[in-house]
């Protein structure tokens, strides 16, 4: 089950009720150097999972392997995993330098090596001018960088980031997101990132694991999860989409208003697909099946609502050649899609759903 390439293996890890929420048996693996994000709404069990991996919380079942070593029952200090918390959790009674040196002292790294790694990480994180400060004198973004430096300096086998950007304002979040990605490229540290922000997840990750109600919904590369989700939940969680019922015949899905779209797999019968608003093309066509119901100018884009048969479609196109409300249009789909897994009976009542 485990291969050499896996840095972290989570095998059927579960937690019986934490408060009112449970983590169902969950398995996944993270490869060396990979940046993996666990994405889900609050209460989906992602933070519990992270706490189990660090050793703060004990799992009810399952095993965790780090570099093929079973760490399930090890105390946090013997796991070789460093974590950056949402609250940064800096030591307020120590200077920035002492915060960063803490892990090296605890791990009894020789003095010369300590000095070398300290200088290196301070340079990477751009903290040269702050080392003598107290954490209380730092801004949120600076504290975040110190927390990151403190975790990176011990060169852990696995770096865990628990919503590290969510306490920052939008602009700073974007800057730090880019810094984090650059840092990941430079250090190559195997990283497990937890967030509820889908755009953070998409922009940073090699792979995303989507969680809901204490279990994994699906996982994959950001682009394929966004464009070709297998689960209705994923389709809706990643942003606006149109859930459309289709008749499937081989690798073609017939749309309810006529026309068809290519599927990436073969199937048959009835099903549903997710069509992103920006993957739909509108062409003015006096004989077309659709009518532009509303067109909202957003600057770079125009957001259209197109009535087609008894469906309302959300479409997003560039604003270079806008279509006026009331224009008759035909709708085409730009990219192949995948079928959504069948929902449990009763869950899908609306035929087209826009979010």
């Amino acid at each position, binding site marked *: 089950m485990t291969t050499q390439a896996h840095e972290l293996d989570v095998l059927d890890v579960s937690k019986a009720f934490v408060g009112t929420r449970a983590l169902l048996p969950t398995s996944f693996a993270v490869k060396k150097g990979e940046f993996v994000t666990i994405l889900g709404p609050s209460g989906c069990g992602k933070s519990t999972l992270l706490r189990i991996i660090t050793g*703060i919380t004990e799992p009810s079942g399952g095993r965790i392997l780090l570099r093929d070593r079973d760490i399930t029952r090890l105390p946090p*200090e013997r796991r070789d995993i460093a*974590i950056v918390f949402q*609250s940064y959790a800096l*030591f307020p*009674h120590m200077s920035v330098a002492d915060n960063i040196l*803490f*892990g090296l002292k*605890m791990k009894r790294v020789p003095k010369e090596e300590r000095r070398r790694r300290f200088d290196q990480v301070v340079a990477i994180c751009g903290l040269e001018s702050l080392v003598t400060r107290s954490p209380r004198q730092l801004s949120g973004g600076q504290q975040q960088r110190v927390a990151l430096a403190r975790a990176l300096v011990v060169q852990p086998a696995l770096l865990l980031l628990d919503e590290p950007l969510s306490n920052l304002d939008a602009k700073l979040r974007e800057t730090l997101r880019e810094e984090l990605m650059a840092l990941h490229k430079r250090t190559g540290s195997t990283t497990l990132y937890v967030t509820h922000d889908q755009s953070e997840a998409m922009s940073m990750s090699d792979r995303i694991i989507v969680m809901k109600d204490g279990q994994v919904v699906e996982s994959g590369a950001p682009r394929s999860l966004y464009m070709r989700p297998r689960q209705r939940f994923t389709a809706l969680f990643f942003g606006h989409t149109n859930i459309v019922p289709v008749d499937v015949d081989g690798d073609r899905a017939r749309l309810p208003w006529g026309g068809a779209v290519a599927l990436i797999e073969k199937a048959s019968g009835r099903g549903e697909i997710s069509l992103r608003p920006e993957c739909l093309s509108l062409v003015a066509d006096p004989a077309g099946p659709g009518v532009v119901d509303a067109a909202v100018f957003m600057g770079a884009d125009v957001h259209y609502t197109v009535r087609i048969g008894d469906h309302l479609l959300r479409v997003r196109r560039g604003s270079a050649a806008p279509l006026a409300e009331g224009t008759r249009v035909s709708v085409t789909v730009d990219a192949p899609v995948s079928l959504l897994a069948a929902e449990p009976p009763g869950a899908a009542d609306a035929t087209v759903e826009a979010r």
Partner: protein
Amino acid sequence: MRAVHLLLLLLPGVGVLLATFGLPLFWAVLGAFGLGADGAGFTLIPLTDIFAEPKYRKGLMMSLYYAIAPTTLTLFVAIPLALMLQKSFIGRKLLNGLYKLPLAVPAIVAAFMVLTLFEQGGFIDRLLMLGGWNIGKIVRDPLGIGVILATLWKDVPFMTLIIAGAFGAIPSDTVHAARSLGATRLRAFWAVQLPLAMPGITAATLLCFVKSLGNFAAPSLLGPAYPLPLSILMYDSYRDGDWMAIYAMGTVLILAAFVVLAAYYTLTAAAFGTGKAASSR
């Protein structure tokens, strides 16, 4: 002009403090030197007497002993107890309520409880007798074990209450971060929890110490007949009408408290850098 405004603004608060606390203190210190309204002229005799006469010298030592010994012992009980109360375990709520009970019992009642329990021929002695043992002298013994027990019983919940609050105010992620950076439970305690809780621990220690320095009920009921602590000697002097001695002893007690507090601050500042930790939250 600004200074006058400031003085006027501060007057209601500072004025009351000066009138109710500063004046009697000033009076007492003056009195100790034989000055003031009913003084007989400047003299150092009452003050030097305290250090020259064995009764007073040993009384001062006894006062310090009755304050330092139980406070130190209380620390060793209260810190682990406060740490334990941070964890969740079965019965935590019950323990959390129960340990505070002694706070509701007046000191004199606590002293009588220790007396009836630990006196020779008392409750525990009789229990031990069933097994053929003897309790030994715990009440009115030369080491003042009875006094220390009674003070401990009163002080443990008091100190635990404050220290548990100090530990509780440390965000749990701060400790978790230390652990995942390689600190064992013990090292995380020494390097992170203890320094961060130090302001609370210091406050608790000082409050307990000063409270015990003037302890009267326990030593008079449970302590040895000689030496007596200054608190009881002051009362005796009052019955003899010897105000000079009272003033002198009061002054010395205050001085002793200041010296011990200064020593405490110096020690903890050296050990934990309390100066930084104290202002950290």
